[in-house]
């Protein structure tokens, strides 16, 4: 049940731009991605194809991103599929299908062109469309067990192995392989993996766009659910998923983002000792299987510090969590652990709302560079030196032209963040309890307030439920 797409590596929103069109690509044709893959796989000349997302047309191409005078180009209308064999820099099995561009032997000798007969004359291995011999790239036309090789340009060395690593050894994995991004696409029993962007032969929840940070590319072995090791869904209908054999790195990865008094991000680096849930239930010990059975056995997750019954985040959930000692509550998040501050330390301060701030701070509290007030990108400003000539909107300095009660701000250079507050704090320390609360308005009489189209509900429903 393998898909023809299994032989291809997909690059989303990308097109190949070729300086010259020799040989010319074929005319685009209608068809699904799998249909195009079938046609390209059957053609010796085809090495890649474009798929137009809107028109559903696909165009077979005789080149890849590694071909001379060809480059990748961002284009949201196209997905690019290239034959894996042309892109991999490691080999599967004996590497006879290797079509990469390495042209040097393991001892650093340059390879002789397959078409050339000097310095080494040979007639056995001359390039043909079928045997994949090309330029002076390493190849394995005679299924040599040592992998791809080539004739060398050194008159004293007729041929030599290129020393290209097997894919299972090329990229090693640390901890549980959650960061593994290698090109292994077979399981430990040798079964080929199913593509993550396909729902056959096995339906599954790990859609690549839904888990953009898990590296779910093509059909490579990955670990999106914090299993013990990288795995994949298989192309064998009878076996849904299986682990992959990937070499373990000798060195443990550097420990980063380790915190104890607070947690950062999702708290994967939290190593504190909070061990009670917020509703007062003690956490279950990680080395215990009661009252809740689980697979997070400490020895199998050496990098996760699953000590005692401390809140931890071994599987990339929203925050540190634990199994609880209450049989009816399996898991509880430990949101009551304080979040570590994630804002820049501030050098300057402002008085009032900062409407008269004239300093030169030009970064947001998250460290993003401010957009110049006069610029029109990445954000088209509603407030500019033209609309607010008196507000001293110079360069990209933080200002408060609209008297925002939360202080100086700016438009940002991050396309996803139109505006944000700046790395400047109020001169009277933030967080200090203001004995008097001048900011708060004395209670308004209820009839002085009116609302529109909000805050209404079906009160009868309230009673029916009771």
């Amino acid at each position: 049940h393998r898909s023809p797409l299994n032989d291809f590596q997909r690059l989303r929103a990308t097109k190949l731009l070729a300086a010259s069109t020799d040989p010319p690509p074929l005319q685009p044709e209608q068809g699904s991605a799998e249909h195009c893959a079938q046609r390209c796989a059957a053609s010796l000349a085809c090495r890649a194809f474009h798929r137009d997302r809107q028109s559903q047309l696909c165009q077979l191409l005789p080149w890849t991103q590694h071909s001379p005078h060809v480059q990748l180009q961002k284009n949201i209308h196209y997905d690019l599929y290239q034959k894996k064999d042309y892109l991999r820099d490691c080999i599967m099995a004996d590497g006879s299908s290797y079509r990469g561009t390495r042209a040097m032997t393991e001892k650093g000798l340059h390879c002789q062109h397959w078409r050339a007969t000097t310095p080494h004359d040979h007639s056995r291995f001359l390039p043909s469309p079928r045997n994949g011999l090309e330029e002076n790239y390493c190849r394995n036309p005679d299924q040599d067990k040592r992998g791809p090789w080539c004739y060398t340009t050194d008159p004293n060395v007729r041929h030599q192995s290129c020393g290209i690593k097997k894919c299972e050894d090329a990229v090693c994995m640390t901890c549980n392989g959650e960061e593994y991004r290698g090109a292994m696409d077979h399981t430990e029993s040798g079964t080929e993996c199913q593509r993550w962007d396909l729902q056959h032969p096995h339906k599954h929840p790990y859609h690549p766009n839904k888990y953009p940070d898990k590296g779910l590319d093509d059909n490579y072995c990955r670990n999106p659910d914090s299993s013990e090791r990288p795995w994949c869904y298989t192309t064998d209908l009878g076996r849904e998923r299986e682990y992959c054999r990937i070499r373990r790195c000798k060195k443990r990865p550097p420990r980063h983002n380790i915190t104890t008094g607070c947690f950062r991000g999702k708290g994967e680096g939290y190593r504190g000792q909070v061990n009670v849930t917020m509703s007062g239930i003690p956490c279950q010990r990680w080395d215990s299987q009661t009252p809740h059975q689980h697979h997070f056995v400490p020895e199998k997750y050496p990098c996760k510090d699953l000590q005692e019954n401390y809140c931890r985040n071994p599987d990339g959930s929203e925050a540190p969590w634990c199994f609880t000692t209450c049989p009816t509550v399996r898991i509880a998040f430990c949101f009551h652990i304080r979040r570590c501050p994630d804002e820049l330390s501030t050098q300057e301060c402002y008085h009032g709302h900062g409407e008269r701030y004239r300093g030169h701070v030009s970064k947001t509290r998250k460290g993003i560079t401010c957009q110049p007030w006069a610029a029109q990108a990445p954000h088209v400003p509603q407030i500019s030196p033209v609309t607010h000539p008196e507000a001293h909107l110079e360069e990209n300095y933080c200002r408060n032209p609209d008297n925002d009660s939360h202080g100086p701000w700016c438009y940002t250079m991050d396309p996803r963040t139109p505006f944000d507050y700046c790395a400047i704090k109020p001169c009277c320390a933030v967080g200090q309890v203001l004995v008097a609360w001048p900011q708060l308005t004395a209670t308004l009489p209820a009839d002085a307030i009116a609302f529109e189209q909000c805050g209404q509900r079906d009160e009868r429903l309230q009673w029916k439920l009771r």
Partner: protein
Amino acid sequence: IIGGLPGNSPWTVSIRNRAGVHFCGGSLVKEQWVISTRQCFSSCDANLAGYEVQLGTLFKDPGPGDPNQQTIPISRIVCGPSESQLVMLKLVRPATLNRRVALICLPPERYVVPAGTVCEIAGWGETRGTADGSVLNVARLPVLAHDECNAALRGRLKESELCTAPLRAGVGACEGDYGGPLACLTADCWVLEGVITPSRICARTDQPALFIRVSLYVDWIHKVMKM
């Protein structure tokens, strides 16, 4: 919600992670905007692909046939001013308002809810056995005067916080409710006066409960929606 009862709060939304698991609450303040709390999200530029809000149902995990249920992906998160602990979530498409889905009103800027006003918290969070955890639960809490609360907290109350009085029966929000609403009835409309934030212990009977005072950040909320 501990010590609550099943109820209807059509602006309360359930925030779900990529595995479809509820982990926090939120309030619908505009058809395409939900307010929640910073504590529920890993960062201010978190990639929320795969995260969704669920509205229009009283059930935490409704069956497939629930007629009014809406599930809408989240497209973006915007963090509020540093002290606010608030975030706004933009939805990929507007929610459809109906009998089960409604907007909650925003208070006037810097409005102070009169002490003693009985307000309502709502959520699908932990009930600790006091109610059916599979449906939306609601509980009522009286607002506590600011200075009275500050005294009870030995002077540690911030201006950005709002308090409700502790009840002997142990009523309050808990894990899974965070980000949800403290709604108060004003001029015949339910108004978002507070946002539920984590406390070390749920539903304490001896200490006020703290909420983010929304009226201090209404200008920021409108600015984000306008921008």
